[in-house]
């Protein structure tokens, strides 16, 4: 991607937020003075105001590169900061992440961190200079580093234990809720979900169990596939790829049946859980039917996603197959590698029989707005599932806007989930709140 206005993801050093999502893990940032705060601001504050948590924000240790390190190298300075962090901060795992300065001048971070690893310190390192890649790249990079540097082969496989690789912590504003929802789905059919990130996910202990899992589950269009592949080659663990983030009953039930079949779960057990969940979901959909069918003033008649591949694919499938909506033009903002694009493009082209959507891949708000303007008929009123950037274009097109992706500065997000059965109900509530509050 080239020039970017209104970015919807950032650089590889974003991996610091992936580390912070592991309970009692703390990143040590070997980078310029502002990098850590800036990324915290972009991923955790201007993104639903997710906050510092245990050790984020101003707590993150950083070498705050000066001109001296740029000229003479920063290894000694890094060593000092690691020593200090070990004394000052109470953590089970430290992960050194390099920024542009360290990666450009070529500090030998592996050697510095290696000396601590030999002392038995639980510490790893990853090369995450901002120019190397995106937030998605950084997320996968730090996880690969942990797999290589922290994990040991397991003595035995634990049947039913599933490692979940799905939405990116912090980058997905709703990650905490979404991961919990996926855990609840899997637990509903008797699997033990190793969720790895967020509240009550088990921290380093849970990570050490990764090699013992029966399989890895990638609930994601493409992010995390390389992790599952890496774990397959490192520990021989098989993996299952569920490309659609399951939102609502149709997708959640399909997800459970497919994952359950792969895991060898008894189908009666799956069907019993699915039936109970669907009963509840459709009870509320039924109640909302009066509103859906009668409140016909200026309702949106096309939906547009300006979101990462998780949301654009997940929300599209939900709105088309659950609520009978029709798609407008779609956007995918997380820069999927070329090899993953055909599947995404095809997925949007075949949302249902005779329902298809075109997609543009871009992280540049200017290009997105220009494309959307050209693709929207003047007699259509879109609802945009996007970011706080997209309020202007939605208004210009006489439409509505729900912020579901970074940056989100028009709503506070705690544990809301859009994944799962209940997640579908939340998405319905939020989209009509956007419509109704705009009209009143």
């Amino acid at each position, binding site marked *: 991607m080239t020039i970017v206005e209104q970015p919807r993801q950032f650089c590889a050093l974003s991996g610091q937020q992936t580390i912070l999502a592991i309970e009692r893990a703390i990143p040590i940032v070997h980078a*310029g003075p502002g*990098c850590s*705060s800036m990324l915290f601001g972009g991923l955790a504050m201007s993104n639903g105001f997710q906050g510092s948590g245990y050790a984020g924000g101003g707590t993150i240790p950083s070498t705050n590169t000066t001109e001296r390190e740029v000229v003479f190298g920063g290894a000694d300075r890094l060593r000092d900061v690691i020593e200090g962090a070990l004394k000052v901060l109470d953590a089970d795992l430290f992960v050194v992440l390099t920024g*542009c300065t360290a990666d450009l001048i070529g500090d030998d971070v592996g050697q510095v961190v290696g000396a601590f690893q030999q002392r038995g310190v639980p510490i790893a390192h990853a090369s995450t200079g901002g120019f190397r890649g995106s937030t998605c790249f950084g997320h996968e990079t730090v996880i690969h580093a942990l797999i290589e540097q922290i994990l040991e082969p397991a003595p035995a496989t634990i049947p039913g234990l599933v490692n979940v690789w799905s939405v990116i912590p912090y980058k997905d504003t709703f990650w905490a809720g979404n991961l919990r929802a996926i855990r609840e789905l899997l637990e509903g059919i008797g699997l033990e979900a190793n969720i790895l990130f967020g509240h009550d996910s088990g921290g380093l202990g849970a990570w050490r169990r990764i090699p013992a899992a029966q399989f890895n589950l990638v609930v994601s269009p493409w992010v995390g596939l390389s992790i599952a592949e890496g774990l397959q080659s490192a520990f021989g663990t098989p993996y299952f790829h569920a490309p659609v983030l399951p939102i609502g009953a149709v997708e959640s039930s399909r997800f459970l049946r497919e994952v359950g079949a792969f895991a060898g779960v008894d189908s009666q057990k799956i069907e019993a859980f699915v039936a109970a969940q669907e009963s509840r979901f459709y009870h509320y959909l039924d109640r909302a039917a009066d509103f859906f069918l009668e409140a016909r003033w200026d309702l949106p008649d096309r939906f547009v996603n300006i979101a990462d591949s998780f949301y654009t694919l997940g929300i599209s499938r939900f709105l088309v197959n659950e609520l009978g909506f029709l798609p407008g033009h779609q956007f995918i903002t997380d820069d999927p590698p070329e090899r993953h694009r055909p599947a995404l493009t095809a997925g949007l082209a075949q949302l249902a029989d005779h329902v298809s959507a075109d997609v543009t891949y871009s992280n540049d708000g200017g290009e997105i707005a220009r494309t959307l303007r050209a693709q929207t008929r003047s007699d259509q009123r879109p609802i945009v599932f996007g970011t706080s950037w997209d309020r202007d274009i939605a208004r210009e097109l006489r439409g509505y806007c729900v912020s579901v992706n970074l940056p989100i500065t028009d709503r506070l997000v705690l544990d809301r989930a859009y994944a799962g059965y209940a997640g579908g109900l939340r998405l319905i509530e939020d989209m009509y709140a956007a419509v109704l509050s705009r009209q009143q």
Partner: protein
Amino acid sequence: MRYNEPSALGQRVRCFPEAPRLTRSNGGCKGQTVDINLKSAVVPIREHRLGSISGYVGTADDLARKSAAGTLEDRRRTFTQCLSCSEMCAVSMLAYIQDAAVISHAPIGCAASFGGMNQLNRWGQNKRDLPVENVHLVSTNLSERDTIFGAAAKVEAAIRIAYERFAPRAIFVATACASAIIGEDLDGPIETLERELGVPIVAVHCEGFRTQIWSSGFDAAYHAILRKIVKPPQRKRNVVNVINFWADDVLTDLFRPLGLEPNMIVPFSSIAQLETISEAVATVQMCTTLGTYLASGLEELHGVPVVKSPLPYGIKGTDAWYRALGRIAGKEAEAEAHIAAEKAAIADDLAALRRELAGKTAYVAAGSSHGHSLISVLRELGVKLEGGCFYHHDAKYDHGDRAADHLRHAVDTYGDFKVGICNKQVFELVNLVRRIKPDMLIVRHGNLAVWGAKLGIPTFLLQDEHLSLGYRGIIRYGRKIADFVSNPALVKHLARHTKLPYTDWWLEQNPYAFLQDASPV
């Protein structure tokens, strides 16, 4: 050549853009003015220009004394937590110029601030009845390839895109660590495009690694404005430049008796408004940490006097500041009348607030100059000060006049207090505040407030630096903090249900245990 081989080092650093080094002469922090050199695209960082430091422990009196004598020494830390950077600060001043565009010449991570800036921009536009729209920010999105082969074409593309999309009246190009290390030439593309497009295009050299004092970024932004935006005065106008962040306008009422009008800059101004700041009768600053360079630049280059008095926070400071403005306006009698009337107007409320806040203690963690101001207001309200820490300390300001030594003013007016120069190090703050247990913690920076709250201490952050300004500001601010401390339910729950990320060992140490011995600046 691979980017991460140490052998690349020499080739990389050789390419650094010009970075003039001002070394202070003997007693350099005493009176003299810093030269404003518009011929250079780069403004010297504060460590070199103002003798600024980021590590110190002692008393306010000692700090002010050493600053005045030019004997201040810096103390480094071996362990550090993340800071802010000058790029962030520079862009945060330029992004809100309503008809300008800013290019972040950096990898996309340096654009992580864009979303927050957009929030602030839209908030400010709403408040000021300006058209509400997204900020005009663009990133060159440097990739690994660009770090090897250069990114001059991207700078050009970004300038063109900014020009086409925003039709800006000026374009600023801000550098960052990566673009500075690869040694990109900005002047070439800028000169060519400036001629072609017919709008000022200004390089802002603000890469983060140059300085530990992120306020240097404000200077870089103002240097850019002084170099290419501000025009020589055609006439004098009865306006006073007010260099501030993004505060509410409380100054129109305050200036009216003197026949003056405030011209609030730089955020939410326009290029046309900035072009004529040379025509103002004076410049005031609500935070000298913010405005020192621009204020002095306007004085030195265009003869706009800086009001060199204590800042208008607390009664005595406001007296001195308002009298100075009265002299500039030639309305000394009106100034005296207004001062007397305002003091009479707040007397009853102030007495009531002093009763309400009697016996309350506070600790202050804030940016340097505004921290001194907050201390003045708190002391005026009768709050007992347990000490303060400031993120850095400027041994002097650019104009060199010690009449505007706010720390000295605070000490002489309200008494000495304990001071740390803390560089926003949360581990020191948590250790210290946990011992002191003040009734309230006053902070003014992101990423800090929550740590006071987790200690169960009501922690108050007020972004609007004008709310506490002037006589009535004492009352406004006093009411806010009185309300705030009266119901500590939230912080009590937070303290009970969260665990601090610090080891027991650390919490037992001297809070400044990681400060090394002093060394000359």
